[in-house]
């Protein structure tokens, strides 16, 4: 998805292209520092939205590429980060439209660590994964932004493309749905 095979003549032509670097919005050092700070949370967000780790890998690179090519000026680190999450949200939405039937929020279960409380924790995570999977993608995205990323209502509105005034109500409803699902553990062996 990110690159394709190139012929020798194409590589030769690329070598002669100048100005492509200038088309990217950041210097290499700035990009690398920004990537190191944000890649993991963005990947986690994409993995929750798409439910597909391989797709999240692809979308992560696409997200950073589009961010670099956007050329937009950012007032702050938070603004830059919000732009990144907005791009990621749009890409996940597009991927969802293309695939339609998508097992959202179904990354592989983590390996069981050897802690004393492993059983309880493992079961809790399984329940949370199951409950999240039952939510609408928008609810899932909002909850993740609010409670995993600590985004403000204004930031969530910017990322999700909704009015700031609507976020409180939308978040309340999403939270209510998840709380209700978490309060009703699925039957043993259920999906």
């Amino acid at each position: 998805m990110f690159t394709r095979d190139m012929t020798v003549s194409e590589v030769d032509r690329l070598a002669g292209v100048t100005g492509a670097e200038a088309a990217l919005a950041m210097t290499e050092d700035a990009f690398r520092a920004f990537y190191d700070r944000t890649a993991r949370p963005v990947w986690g967000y994409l993995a929750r939205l798409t439910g597909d780790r391989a797709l999240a890998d692809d979308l992560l690179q696409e997200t950073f590429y589009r961010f670099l090519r956007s050329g937009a000026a950012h007032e702050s680190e938070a603004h830059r980060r919000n732009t990144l999450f907005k791009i990621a949200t749009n890409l996940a939405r597009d991927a969802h439209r293309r695939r339609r039937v998508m097992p959202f929020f179904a990354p592989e279960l983590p390996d069981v660590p050897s802690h004393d409380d492993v059983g309880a924790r493992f079961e809790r995570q399984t329940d949370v994964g199951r409950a999240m999977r039952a939510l609408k993608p928008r609810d899932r995205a909002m909850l993740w932004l609010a409670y995993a990323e600590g985004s403000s209502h204004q930031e969530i509105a910017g990322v999700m493309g909704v009015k700031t005034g609507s976020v409180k109500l939308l978040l309340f409803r999403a939270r209510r749905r998840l709380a209700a699902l978490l309060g009703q553990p699925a039957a043993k062996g259920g999906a």
Partner: protein
Amino acid sequence: MARISCPHEDDVLMLATTGQWPDRADAELRAHVATCQVCADVALVALAIEDERAGTPEPSLPSSGTVWWRAQLRAKQDAVRESGRPITVAHAVLLAVAGGLAGAIFGATTDWFQRGLRAGREAVGSVLSNIPLPSVPADSTWLATYGSALAVGGVIMVAATAVVIWALREE
């Protein structure tokens, strides 16, 4: 009407996301959460998501250098693709118009082309006159008058359409 927010929810959220809920919460706040649906939901959801996040296996992400290098490569590929794009729709339309004009001038100034057109028109007219078509009157001069113009126009339209389709496929 149910409340959708509570003045204490930020305190609950802060404690839940920093791993301090419920142990570090004071008794008053714990008592409030026991009776407040909003705060109870915030605590439950925040703890669940925090747990889920903490339990996610570490992804093997490409290094920043690799992503930067790929972005550079792809930016160059895109630049080459854009600069090498052979024709745009505007170019195609311009080409079609120019082709049409050249064809019209050629048709109007070339004797053998006009003789050929006349012969073709007569041949078509004679064929049509032998076929009893209800929509074409037997004594119609319409075809004789406009037939050649129609033929040239048709050829130009077909050529222009073909050029536009070709250009769009290149896009």
